[in-house]
């Protein structure tokens, strides 16, 4: 479904990603782990199309189409979703109405008619249950005054309504207590399907207790230095990142 080939990306003239290769098949859940500053969030934002990041080399194919050639909104309409590490507060824009406009933009792109108000409300009610979202949050401005946990739940709620085919979760576990983490993870698990792939970005292994990945990749200094099954996450949890960073340094003697 998604093929990342030799991806290099800069921010502010500094190269952060030094050639990332990754392939995620339909229905698969891959996790990316890595120490702070390794480029995890950069990878997420490059995939979503943030214009502060410049891709200097490489390719990303989404169902064979050139993803990097698309504006962020086109990526979203094609079925890419990113759950933000820090969801943005947007005063004055209602969470529900905004979501309806977003859903209709996606539907229009796919040649579907606009959803009518009754069906939309039904859809919203159904999806809210996935993340046990409070009714009140629907009518508030997007993320405004939401707690950290509410913001993350709102991200998963948006994802549930927009039904992407490829979702990137950027440190969705950060700042969550264990109950919120469980709720968010269960929401994600309910959205897993043979047609939907996930890239779960996290610093800590604990999220992967709940969202069990098919593959785990370790990103160090802008490169994937090791890939394995879910047991790799447990190994990292036990041993920390130090040993793998050393290994990576030895394996790349020419890197400055």
């Amino acid at each position, binding site marked *: 479904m998604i093929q990342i080939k030799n991806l290099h990306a800069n921010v502010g003239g500094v190269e952060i990603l030094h050639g990332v290769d990754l392939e995620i098949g339909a229905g698969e859940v891959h996790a990316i782990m890595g120490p702070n500053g390794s480029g995890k969030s950069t990878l997420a934002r490059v995939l*979503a*199309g*943030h*214009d502060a990041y410049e891709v200097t080399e490489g390719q990303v194919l989404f169902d064979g189409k050139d993803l990097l050639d698309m*504006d*962020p*909104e086109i*990526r*979203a*309409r094609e079925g890419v*979703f*990113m759950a*933000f590490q820090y*969801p*943005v507060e*947007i*005063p*004055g*824009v*209602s969470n529900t*109405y*905004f*979501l*309806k*406009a*977003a*859903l*209709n*933009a*996606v539907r229009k*792109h796919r040649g579907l008619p606009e959803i009518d108000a009754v069906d939309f409300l039904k859809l919203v009610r159904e999806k809210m249950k996935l993340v046990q979202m409070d009714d009140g949050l629907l009518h508030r*401005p997007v993320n405004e005054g939401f707690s950290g946990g509410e913001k993350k739940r709102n991200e998963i709620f*948006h994802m549930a309504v*927009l039904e992407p085919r490829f979702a990137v979760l950027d440190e969705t576990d950060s700042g969550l207590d264990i109950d919120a983490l469980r709720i968010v993870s269960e929401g994600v698990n309910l959205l897993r399907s043979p047609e939907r792939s996930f890239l779960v970005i996290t610093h800590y292994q604990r999220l992967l207790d709940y969202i069990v990945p098919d593959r785990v990749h370790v990103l160090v200094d802008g490169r994937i230095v090791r890939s394995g099954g879910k047991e790799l996450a447990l190994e990292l949890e036990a041993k920390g990142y130090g040993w793998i960073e050393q290994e990576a340094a030895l394996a790349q003697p020419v890197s400055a």
Partner: protein
Amino acid sequence: MSATSIEPDSAAAGAAQPFLDEFARLAAERTTEPTRIAEMRRRAIEHFNAVGFPARDEEEWRFTNVAPIVRSSFRAESYETVGLGMEAIASSVFAGVAARLTFVDGRFAPTLSFVGDLPAGVFVGRLAEAIEAQREEVSEHLGAHRPGDGPGTHAFAALNAALFRDGACILLPRGARIEAPIHLVFVASGGTMSFPRNLIVLGVDAQATVVETYTGIGGAGGSSLTVPVTEIVTFADANLKHVKVQREEHDAFHVAAFELHQDRSSRVASHSISLGGGLVRNDLHAVLAGEGADCVLNGLYLVEGRQLVDNHMKVEHAAAHCDSHELYKGVLDGKSRAVFSGLIHVHPGAQKTDAKQSNRNLLLSGEAIANSNPQLEIYADDVKCTHGSTVGQLDEDAIFYLRSRGIGIEAARSLLTYAFASELVERIPVEPVRRALEEFLFSRLPGGEVVRQAV
């Protein structure tokens, strides 16, 4: 600010001539005016003659150059008063009003006006008629708070006092309440000058809602000049909601004064919306003269192209326990300019004052400029006064967030712009005016259909 006489240069003196001519013409027409009014006009025109038009080195006009007004010529005659049909004001009017008074180029237009059933003792009608009838409220209040001369009175305020032909007069006796809004419509046709004068007096415990709409019909005559003055007096416990919508042609000049004098525990909520005009100046002066008076001053300006809008606010807390809350927001596109000058003056003895002032500007273009100058002068020691101003652009993170959900970039920008303005739109207490403003925004903003759906 200039209290002393300035010798007008020859060009300015030449520019003053049409106004002096108009004064002479009016004086000949109006032989029956009460002495007090005639005297007010005479002092005003002398004051105008003495001070001349404001110069750029005057602090109050530092950012607003009136040279384009001085250079233009305007005719005092109106060609349109008789022939103008409802279609000229159709986009401004709405149903469910208690009365509608329409003035075209400063003259009353009876066919575009009506007054419905009103409570006993209420007067809603022409100021000229109220003057002629020698109504007590008029002799007591007209020009009492916004005189046509004296220190601090600029040329435009003087010209209004000297040259007004008519305007609306709304007088509510003690306890009178009018639920439906009273709508005042001022139409400017191209190339004309007009000086509408409005007087609103709410007696003890009276209650009313007044909407003033300033609109233009263009025409071949060039830019119009409208110089309105609205004087408002609210007696104890009175409650006034006031909305001003300025949506004249984009080349129009509009220099307005809004004078508010509030007695004990009276409440005024003012909403000033500036959409049109090439050069728009609003002087707002509120005096909270009685204990416990409360005023809310909201403003929204949306400018583009080479429009300039200048809001000069002065709120005086002259008594204890008064509240004033000002929120003015502007959206600037193109090469437009906005000026906000806000002074809160707390007099000695005005303890427990609660004054807030905020001015926020959103720049949609790199060439738009906003000047914001909040000031506090506090002569009492037990007060709560806050002020703040911001000038900024749309939040890039928010734009990316919206786009990442499938909203197009244009619609995302428009949505955030709408959200910025909506705080003030939502406060407008007259639903048809609020709806019309929403529609204006949807039509003005690129991708407005998405915005309509998303708010």
